């Protein structure tokens, strides 16, 4: 796997040195985001209208215990309570894909699910993709192919692409798969259809598709 990581000649350190760090890594490190940004204000126990509950999540391999307002989405739990600000809030209505994370290995929109619905689940965010200094092949490919401009949608694009490749590996068809019974071949048309839940306002789509195609064998 380490050989694959080096396929594009990009390491975590080299990304950190360049301007692409925030886009492909999500943040420099999760702890820093938490330090830099105050956490959500504590819930006043005297407010009778608010219902809270304990939620246990494993985020990027680390167990986390939270007491949350029941209304807290998984996205807000990650960003505001745990400091994983790499996962972005775009539309907050499931239309843009910027909040895509993996839950038990499957890509979902973190904005359209409650943290409470994921008690006990394993979550992977953009901050959890790299292995130490080594970028995940999908992160390296996005850097290599310049698969972004402003970078805001990039963490969601990368997480979605990782989840999408796993779906394809398991034989999931798409609506453009000619023969539903056959194992799908991921040509550019397939990649575009399968990634349609991730919008890029800068329209970096050609390079995003190229990055995914490059990382396909390695991810």
């Amino acid at each position, binding site marked *: 796997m380490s050989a694959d990581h080096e396929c594009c000649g990009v390491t975590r350190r080299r990304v950190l040195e360049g301007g692409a760090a925030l886009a492909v890594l999500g943040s420099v490190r999760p702890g820093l985001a938490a330090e830099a940004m105050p956490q959500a204000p504590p819930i006043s126990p005297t407010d009778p209208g608010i219902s809270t509950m304990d939620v246990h999540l494993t985020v990027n391999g680390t167990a986390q215990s939270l007491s949350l307002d029941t209304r807290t989405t998984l996205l807000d739990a990650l960003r505001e309570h745990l400091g994983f600000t790499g996962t972005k809030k775009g539309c907050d209505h499931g239309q843009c894909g910027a909040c895509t994370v993996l839950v038990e290995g499957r890509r979902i929109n973190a904005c359209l699910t409650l943290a*409470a619905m994921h008690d006990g689940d394993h979550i992977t965010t953009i901050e959890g993709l790299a292995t130490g200094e080594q970028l995940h092949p999908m992160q390296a490919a996005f850097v290599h192919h310049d698969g972004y401009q402003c970078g805001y949608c990039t963490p969601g694009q990368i997480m979605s692409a990782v989840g999408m490749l796993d779906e394809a590996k398991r034989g999931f068809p798409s609506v453009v798969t000619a023969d539903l019974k056959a194992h799908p071949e991921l040509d550019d048309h397939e990649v575009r259809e399968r990634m349609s839940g991730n919008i890029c306002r800068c329209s970096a789509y050609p390079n995003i598709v190229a990055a995914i195609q490059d990382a396909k064998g390695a991810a």
Partner: protein
Amino acid sequence: MKTFTYERPTTVAAAAQALAAKPDSKFIAGGTNLLDLMKLEVETPAHLIDVNKLPLDAVEDTPDGGLRIGALVRNSDLAADPRVRKSYGVLGRALLAGASGQLRNKATTAGNLLQRTRCYYFYDVTQPCNKREPGSGCSAIGGFNRVLAVLGTSDHCITTHPSDMAVAMQVLDAKVETTAADGATRTIPLAEFYRLPEATPQLETNLKTGEIITAVTLPPPPPGVQIYRKVRDRASYAFALVSVAAIVDTADGQVRSARLAFGGLAPKPWRSASAEAALTNQKAGAPAFAGAGEALVQGAKGSGHNDFKIPLVQRTLSAVLTQATLNA
């Protein structure tokens, strides 16, 4: 979002009883539609019953050669099921034509059936809407109605049902299995599951209070070519302007049977017995296809911006039937 309390039952009986006990509660499964609506305060349940731990996530063969799809089977898993891919292509294509990869990974079979309309005015709490607030009036009639219905409407509501999956299930004669709070079970043909708006657009299905959907069953696959064609404003990740689900059986250039259902046209998945009858035992070809289209739109009524749907669906139907009978 309004505050709510939350519980997570582990049995169907407990879930149905929880709903019956608290009238202002809602089931939540995938949540992809409900949470969207709760953020906008279109939906304001005081209590959520998370049904994700119920044992309803299996796809099973039925003794008669059909399929029984658990209420919690995710849309992506159902589309990837080998039996759906092999024998129910119209359903697989419809599922895959809906939403995005991320949403299909969350969205469930029962939740898809029960999703609400995407009418702009239903979503806009500052505007009158008879579905959201009975008696307040319909802003879509005389308003911006390009995506709305031309069949099955009333003076009170012209919404469309947004599901692709339900259109395919309608053409397959699916049935909905439910359990009530008292433990009673029943099976509702999908054709009798949805209500038309008439004077009560807030009532969308014939489910009773406290009744929970446990499964959708499909009869054995009918003979014929299966096609799902969706026409929309962009190539992917958009709701249907019109969609056609067709199962057409032909022999020696003649249509033996045709099953046709439509999305984007009506407040419920729209099965057209008259269009089907116009094709049965007819020579496959443009005259018969045009006749089916004309039968389909008998009584159709546009509201201005959506008038285009009436010719569009006839042309889409002709294209689908041409494709379905190519080797007839």
